[in-house]
């Protein structure tokens, strides 16, 4: 079963051990700390853990205590993984701000909860905690594909099943979706010219699959092919060799060039 199902109330594990079992002020070796922090989903998760570990009432957080514990963790983290630390640093700033505001003289009327600088943090913690437990509950719900399969007996017809129809627009849309999502990662520049090179790459590989060795010049038909096509074919050969898919050989200077598939 998944990690989430057997997880403890904090949802965090270190080397398969419950994190809650770590002694309070245990020195955590740096490599372990990274694993430790990676087992948290973020600063709110860590904060929740600290609150729960000390059995703190979230509506009455002792800010000084919590802030110093939290900052202590973040300090250690900074030395290991600054990227991971960014979100956590933001949280430290927020904790310090709350703490400093608490030190200011309190309003006359203690009934006014809105004035408590902790209120916003508490709301965030509560909301995150809700989502965290909702995620656990979702994971425990039976799911199609994991816990059950859907009846799917074969449907016999007299006619052969038609294969799915796809047209060029479907393909275009699918590609658009891929690009749209991939854009979040990196740019995939596909130009028309690259496509024709790729087409040639494929056809050269196909030809090599049939004949282990091809003469370089046999790939070019200078009489029939227009110059752009010859250029594209040449680029395809270069690209194939760059991607280490083919080898270009020559026995001796001025003898014919041969290309063959790269071998292990």
């Amino acid at each position, binding site marked *: 079963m*998944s*990690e*989430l199902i057997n997880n403890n109330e904090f*949802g965090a594990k270190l080397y398969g051990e419950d994190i809650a079992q770590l002694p309070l002020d245990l020195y955590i070796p740096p490599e372990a700390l990274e694993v430790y922090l990676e087992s948290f*989903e*973020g*600063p*709110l*998760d860590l904060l*929740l853990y600290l*609150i*729960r570990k000390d*059995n*703190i*009432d*979230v*509506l009455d957080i002792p800010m000084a205590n919590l802030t110093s514990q939290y900052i202590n963790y973040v300090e250690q983290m900074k030395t290991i993984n600054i990227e991971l630390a960014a*979100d956590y640093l933001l*949280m430290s700033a927020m904790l310090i701000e709350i703490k400093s505001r608490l030190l200011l003289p309190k309003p006359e009327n203690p009934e006014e909860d809105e004035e408590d600088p902790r209120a916003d943090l*508490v*709301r*965030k*913690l*509560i*909301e*995150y*905690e*809700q*989502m*965290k*437990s*909702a*995620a*656990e*509950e*979702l*994971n425990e*719900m*039976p*799911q*199609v*594909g*994991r*816990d*059950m*399969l*859907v*009846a*799917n*007996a*074969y*449907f016999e017809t007299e006619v052969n099943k038609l294969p799915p129809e796809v047209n060029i627009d479907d393909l275009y849309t699918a590609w658009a979706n891929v690009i749209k*999502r991939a854009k*979040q*990662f990196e740019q995939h520049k596909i130009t028309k010219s690259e496509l024709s090179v790729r087409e040639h790459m494929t056809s050269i590989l196909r030809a090599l699959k049939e004949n282990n060795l091809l003469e370089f010049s046999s790939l070019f038909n200078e009489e029939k092919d227009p110059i752009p096509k010859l250029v594209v074919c040449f680029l395809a050969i270069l690209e194939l060799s760059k991607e280490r898919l083919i080898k270009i050989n020559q026995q001796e200077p001025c003898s014919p060039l041969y290309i063959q598939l790269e071998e292990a």
Partner: protein
Amino acid sequence: MAQDKIKQIIEVALLTNSQPLSIDDFQKMFDKNIERSTIRMLLDEIKQDWQNKALDLVQVAHGYRFQSKIEYSEFLKKLNPDRVPKYSRAVLEVLAIIAYRQPVTRGDIEKIRGVSLNPNSLKQLIEREWVDIIGQKEVPGRPSLYATTKYFLDDFGLKSLSQLPEFKDLEDSILSPSIEKDQSKDDVQEASNINDDG
């Protein structure tokens, strides 16, 4: 047509279709010559007939379907061990936020989790067809709005979002037992109202 025959046709349709079938679908099979109430009654009978067998007839968002009882999952999994999807905590948290707070933007998700979002989490959910982009929020940058799909409901055996498990009482979760219950309820209410400033 004899009711027995109608019943058997409905049963075989359910057994051969992995997509859930609606009452409309069944009516189509009989050129609308069978009342919806008759179909419902026969579906109830089929459900009864299968009670002690290996499949359950269940109703989900898109209609009715047969599914294997959970007790068989350990065996069925072995047929296709690498087909069984498993999601990380991060992905499940994102799913929970989308399910309970939809429609949400990426920024909303990041705000609730307090940490920046790995785009891969969203991708996995979109890939599974559990989550979809349903539009853009008309704020600067026009961020995409994410929501759960009907397939999500189907796969979790739900008829509608209202069947999602309710949030646990805060008393069980974050508040220490010394706080009164009534107060915590108010806070839940309050908490869920405040989160929507983009």
